[in-house]
């Protein structure tokens, strides 16, 4: 982590506030604190921001702000950052049908790691993954904390179409595809839960700073849940954490 944040121009209406140059919980907490500080400060002329692992891209109105003056204003926020109060994180429990038609690459993970199918599932569903950021496609969570024992390389040639809800592994990362898209991750299962629904009042299910926990379900259970999701009758099981995990 840098002693002081770096303020970098990203065009005539973009400004990057960078807190470090690695993926770590502490740096990411800074990013999220800063986003919260912006929300609370109500600074005019700040249009939106994109938080990521270790920085925040702020889009501002150049008619309101000169780059240097905005940097000075944001430095004031940075100075008071340690006082931020976070809401308690939540754990989103997502059902996953592992293997078979929904997880065509599960056998590859087994081959690659020498682990049995049951063990891969147990390891993958045995951790709460921190959502570092959302990006790439609507609602795509960048998750941290996967066990290195089930790490596996990407496909040599990406698939043209990966179904929405597919759960994959790429290197030591795991993630979920919220919409049908091309991709090179190894697909080990699928969740019937919708991570992105533009017609919903809350279009994106997950938030940066919260956690994802996968739990295995059978194909029958998958279908039951999928039907409930379609009818709008399914509520994702969410666990409220008592306090922030440092």
């Amino acid at each position, binding site marked *: 982590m840098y002693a002081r944040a770096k303020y*970098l*121009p990203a065009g005539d209406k973009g400004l990057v506030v960078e807190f470090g140059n690695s993926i770590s919980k502490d740096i990411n907490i800074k990013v999220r604190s800063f986003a919260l500080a912006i929300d609370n400060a109500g600074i005019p002329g700040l249009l939106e*921001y994109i938080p*990521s692992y270790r920085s925040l891209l702020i889009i501002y109105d150049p008619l309101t702000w*000169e780059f240097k003056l905005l940097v000075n204003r944001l430095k004031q926020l940075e100075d008071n950052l340690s006082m931020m109060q976070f809401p308690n994180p939540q754990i989103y429990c997502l059902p996953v049908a592992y293997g078979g038609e929904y997880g065509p690459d599960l056998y590859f993970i087994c081959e690659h790691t020498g682990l049995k199918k049951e063990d891969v599932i147990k390891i993958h569903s045995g951790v709460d993954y921190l959502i570092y950021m959302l990006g790439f496609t*609507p609602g795509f969570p960048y998750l941290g904390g996967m066990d290195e024992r089930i790490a596996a390389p990407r496909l040599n040639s990406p698939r043209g179409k990966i179904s929405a809800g597919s759960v994959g592994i790429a290197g030591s990362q795991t993630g979920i595809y919220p919409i*049908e898209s091309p991709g090179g991750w190894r697909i080990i299962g699928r969740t019937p839960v919708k991570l992105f629904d*533009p017609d919903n009042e809350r279009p994106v299910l997950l938030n940066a700073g919260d956690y994802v926990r996968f739990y295995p379900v059978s194909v029958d259970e998958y279908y039951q849940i999928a039907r409930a999701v379609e009818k709008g009758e399914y509520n994702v099981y969410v666990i409220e954490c008592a306090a922030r995990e440092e």
Partner: protein
Amino acid sequence: MPFLRVASPGLLTTVQDRGRFYFQKWGVPVAGAMDEYALRVANMLVGNHEDEACLEITLLGPEIMFLEAGLIALTGGDLGAVLNDSPVEPWSSFPVEKGDTLKFTGRGIGCRAYLGVAGGFKVPRVMESKSTYLRGSMGGMKGRALREGDELEVDKQELNKSFISVQAPPEYRYEPAPPFVVRVILGPQEHAFTQRGIETFLKSKYVVTHESDRMGCRLDGPVIQHKGEPDIISDGIAIGSIQVPGKGTPIIMMAERQTTGGYAKIATVITPDLWKIAQAKPGDGISFTAVTPEQARSEYIEYENMLKKLPRKLAQLQEKQWEKGENKKLLLVRVAGKEYRVEIKEL
């Protein structure tokens, strides 16, 4: 009642407004018009709010049959528009009648034209925008490009509003003439490149490749040298961001860019020059010149001020034309719950 029918869709015709803002923190791309300048002028020419939805027409235009009378405008690249076989003045609004046909002969000056209609196109707003996000299959016409047989309605016709055709004053019209010189602000990751790499970037001529689309304009040309690894920890991408992946040639991230990405970004195109990227066709030349954030800001203020003045200038032009008797007024009036179009001419 539909306003127009697509007789043939052209290469890629989509409904776009200025974009889907405020959801980027959730990973939702902005989409919207590639050439926001041309979109805003098209809307102003027909008296719309500058953020209304227009058709974005790419290279080979559609064939459109009008099912109702109305006022439309064409701006941006000159793709050879003809209304019932007569060429249409670029950067102007003009009335169309029921049964009129608009075609594009593919003149190919520039890459994208914008067709606006008084009242705007009626498509559902998805997450507060009418823009089509093609990769996400959302917004616009059912999340996709227009197809043969599609019909579009006009959103809201204001009552007692006059329809007078008008052309944007010359200082508001550009004619895309490659090669383009594009102004950029260096950063946010210019430190990821060697001094030589930055010189290569600023002193070379690049050529737009065929892999370019609404997401990114991919360039071919001299390889830009990174200091170390070309990959960075994924972070936010602004419009006009110039990524340089390991291959060493730049990609300018445009309307349908993903919100975050993991390639080092050497520079960002300034807003008043984004139209040049939107209008650059495969094979066109592009070179870059660096400006300071301060210079960029004064350019931006001038750009916005100029656009702000346009509606008044157009109103003055319309008034003059009306006085000279060169025009007619079309009024939409409502009598006993029924709407009528009334054409007014001075005797």
